[in-house]
């Protein structure tokens, strides 16, 4: 149940200002710990909280498209879970600490496991463009980290089942003609909602209600009577007021959602490459050296020395994980 879940206890925040606090804290922490280690010019490249936000929004779009194009077809709840994980992760860590590209795939992989949409790692990386073995390594190395950052709160309550419940209720107790007409509007609304911070601020049933109301208003129907009388007929007026407030919050967030143009994103990405935490960059020398040291003790006794082969260049790892689809249309 949502009311007794960790999602409500630990991951539902009062309003956007709290989220902003969290993100700026993560950013500041990274700057404080890594700033001094970087050269002067790299330090100018450090991203601030707003730029991180823009980048994250871009990568959330990527996440959505990755899930949409997934083979075999991925149920929406898995995508929803992955979104939640992604948002939560970047409340704790800065974008420069762990690159969103890597965390993105790890979130989706973990979500498939948690939501019982079983996909083997091979099948999974087949959906990833670019070097697939490298992607596999990245995902498997990051999985435990992701779980730890989420504090192992892995159960996510998504708004999809509440939508179904509300529709059943409207069909039974409401007076609307053919509530099935609401579905396209609902889907559209929820898609947009997942790109905002709404899932971290309202309960999934409230999100579902907001979607239903929005869709209804789009086709010109009015469900207010249903909401006040039937749905909350026996509750106090304060409850009604808070619910209305929540719904209004969500709708305003969606309306004010904006996306940055592609060129800005590209510039930010370049800057990210320069200022990111190299210890977590699988392409960097430091990372490779660390892996080398970790593996070296084990492999030596078998006479195989893959790390040194890689270092000497005889064995090559591919470049880049996957290429961003250049022909991205606006959402």
């Amino acid at each position, binding site marked *: 149940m949502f*009311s007794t879940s960790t999602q409500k206890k630990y991951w539902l925040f009062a309003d956007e200002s709290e989220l902003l606090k969290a993100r700026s804290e993560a950013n500041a922490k990274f700057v404080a710990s890594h700033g001094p280690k970087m050269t002067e010019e790299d330090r100018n490249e450090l991203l601030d909280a707003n730029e991180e936000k823009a980048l994250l929004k871009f990568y959330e779009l990527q996440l959505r498209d990755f899930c949409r194009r997934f083979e075999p077809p991925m149920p929406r709840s898995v995508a929803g879970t992955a979104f939640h994980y992604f948002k939560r992760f970047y409340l704790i860590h800065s974008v420069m600490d762990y690159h969103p590209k890597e965390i993105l795939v790890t979130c989706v992989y973990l979500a498939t496991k948690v939501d019982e949409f079983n996909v083997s790692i091979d099948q999974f990386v087949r959906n990833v463009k670019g070097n697939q073995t490298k992607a596999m390594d990245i995902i498997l190395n990051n999985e435990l980290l992701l779980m730890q950052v989420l504090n192992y709160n892995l159960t996510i309550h998504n708004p999809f*089942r509440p939508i*179904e*419940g509300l529709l*059943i209720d409207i069909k039974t107790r409401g007076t609307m003609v053919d509530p099935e007409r609401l579905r396209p509007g609902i889907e559209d609304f929820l898609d947009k909602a997942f790109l905002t911070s709404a899932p971290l601020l309202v*309960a999934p*049933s409230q999100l579902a209600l907001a979607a239903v109301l929005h869709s209804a208003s789009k086709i010109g129907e009015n469900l207010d009577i249903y909401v006040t009388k039937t749905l909350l007929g026996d509750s106090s007026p304060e*409850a009604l007021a*808070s619910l209305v407030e929540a719904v209004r919050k969500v709708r305003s967030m969606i309306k004010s959602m904006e996306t940055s143009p592609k060129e800005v994103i590209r510039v930010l990405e370049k800057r990210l490459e320069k200022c990111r935490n190299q210890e977590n960059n699988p392409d960097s020398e430091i990372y490779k050296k660390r892996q080398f040291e970790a593996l070296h003790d084990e492999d030596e006794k078998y006479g195989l020395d893959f790390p040194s082969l890689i270092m000497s260049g005889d064995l090559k790892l591919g470049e880049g994980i996957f290429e961003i689809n250049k022909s991205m249309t606006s959402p």
Partner: protein
Amino acid sequence: MDEQACPRCKTTKYRNPSLKLMVNVCGHALCDSCVDLLFLKGSGSCPDCGVPLRRSNFRVQIFEDPFVEKEMDIRRRVMRDYNLKEEDFANLQDYNNYLEEVERIVYNLTNNIEIVSTNQSIDRFKRENKDLIAKNRIRSGREEIILEELLEEEKILVESRKRAIAHEEMLEKKKKMRSKEALIDELMFSEQSAASIVETFKKRKLEEQEEMERHREPSPPPLVAATQFSTGIKFSQRIPKDGFLPVPKEDDTPLFKYEPLVLTRNGPSAPTWEEVTEKKYINHVRESSVVERAGGYLPQLACLRALEEAFDGLRTVAVARWTGQVA
């Protein structure tokens, strides 16, 4: 096996691993053939330390270290006199002091420290607690006999079971052989065709098997050790079965009481199971196929779950503040 060799004949130990080492009160070991040689007369002296020994004092060595054997010997001797139990003491402190005293004595005697004074304290103790020692000796004697009787009974049970199983197997084997021979005889001497003979035999075998299954003979009751005279008077030392067993303690823990689950739902309440069908919610849910219903799935389940999730949490007001990194 022992890497040690007998100190006298050294060679014989390696060649014959079944040769056992015997140890005496002085702690030095000898293989049993050497014991025979040296103690032909009945008494002699230890080849290592020259202490006069008797042949009867030799015991089969259990531990590799003769020092341990010596200590075990001494301990056994001491414990024959120092056999007081916890109940004989006023408080725990006294009992512990007594135990420490025992250990001190054993240690001294084993390591040849202050032998004279130690023996004196042993004699003193014996004199002071003569009746307690005697009483305990009788009590322990009784317990030992009871244990022995129990062990005897167990052994007899196990043996009789083994015998029964062996007997059954033998019977089976004999039967099989007999039927085989009968088949061969028939094939040789009868005038019917070979196929029909084989058929009849097969049928008979199946019938026999079914009969066996139906009348499984109860195994004969295992022989019980004789514990009573034919008149019914028991002559074992054991406490009778319905004797003075310890009184079972009163269990004061509260009994389990079922309390129905209380769900905190931050929203309007969902309909109950019956209402789902009565009020026609169910009409808007896909009907379950026969296959699904066989697995226990009913459409009411899905309907109720959707409705509950829709209503749960509608009145939630998020108040959490960001307080720093989670974990």
